[in-house]
């Protein structure tokens, strides 16, 4: 079993139903969790399914539950997660499992679009590029969440997502907040309406797991608070 040179790894096999299968993997110097998963598929069990693309934390397709915590596996060093020579790898939570470690991310992106996380242009390709003050308050607020790689780690960490299938989730709402604050965006009200419905930002209980686990140190909780604030302000404005 687990010792200095080898680790024991339990890997989820199956889809919604399944079980953990143990593997022995050699410990190497610079090894990420993704390397472990890939090694198992390449050398121990060729039927293992998982997903990755960029291998450097840019594409957000390799996230999995490692010891019960959602992580980007390509940027997670094995040393960081090994407990007594053991680790457990499961598919990302809160998404349907296609097979083994690969999930269906469609619900995540459907919600992204449903939250109006899409630019609504005011200008066209024929207009010159506007001068925009990079230090303007709204621009800074908008830019705060812009580096999201849509890895769905926050989505997996959020218990509200788990408990409420309608909830749009942290990443989609954070994107909506960026769109809302973008001075080039045409339809602010559309964003507020989109995040005020049954699955909207008001479902968030500020659990904060999204901010704690985002691998890029983004803070969707803050963005959602911003949406709550703006919708609340708007609530009175629209009524008066």
């Amino acid at each position, binding site marked *: 079993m687990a010792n200095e040179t080898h680790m024991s790894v339990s890997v989820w096999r199956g889809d919604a139903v399944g079980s953990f299968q143990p593997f022995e993997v050699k410990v190497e110097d610079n090894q990420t969790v993704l390397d472990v998963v890939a090694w198992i598929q390449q050398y121990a069990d060729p039927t293992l399914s998982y997903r990755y693309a960029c291998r450097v934390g840019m594409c957000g397709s390799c996230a999995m539950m490692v010891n019960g915590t959602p992580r980007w596996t390509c940027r997670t060093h094995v040393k960081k997660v090994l407990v007594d020579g053991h680790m*457990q790898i499961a598919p990302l939570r809160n998404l349907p499992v296609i097979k083994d470690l690969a999930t269906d991310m469609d619900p995540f992106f459907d919600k992204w679009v449903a939250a109006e996380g899409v630019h609504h242009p005011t200008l066209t390709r024929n207009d010159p590029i506007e001068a925009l003050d990079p230090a303007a308050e709204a621009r800074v607020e908008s830019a705060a969440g812009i580096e999201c790689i849509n890895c769905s780690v926050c989505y997996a960490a959020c*218990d509200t997502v788990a408990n409420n299938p309608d909830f749009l989730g942290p990443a989609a709402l954070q994107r909506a907040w960026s769109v809302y604050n973008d001075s080039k965006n045409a339809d602010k009200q559309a964003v507020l309406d989109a995040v005020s419905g049954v699955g909207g930002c008001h479902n968030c209980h500020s659990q904060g797991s999204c901010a704690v686990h985002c691998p890029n140190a983004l*803070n969707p909780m803050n963005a959602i608070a911003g949406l709550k604030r703006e919708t609340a302000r708007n609530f009175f404005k629209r009524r008066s």
Partner: protein
Amino acid sequence: MRRGYRNHTLWVAYLLHRLSGVALALFLPVHFWVLSYALNQPEHLDGFLRWSEMGIVKFAEFGLVFLLAAHLFGGLRLMALEWLPWTSGQKTAAAGAVAASTLIAGVFLMRAI
């Protein structure tokens, strides 16, 4: 499956707030019922007054007050977090302050018993 992702203060604050809210929602109707049972029929009043002196009842009532205090501060914390455009540093500080004040309120109440 292990649930390592919940190990942080904000999540614990969320859970406490919810549990206190649910507990309040369960106890408050009882509290209301007892009050109205005792106070709306004069013949019950004496019994109620005697009853309310009992330690266990007092304890329960103070439990209610304690839950109320915890939930109140938790709720105020939440609304401050949602509506005041604070930086995350300030928010952590505020959360800490609220936690402390809840504690103080609790201790104070315990003493009062």
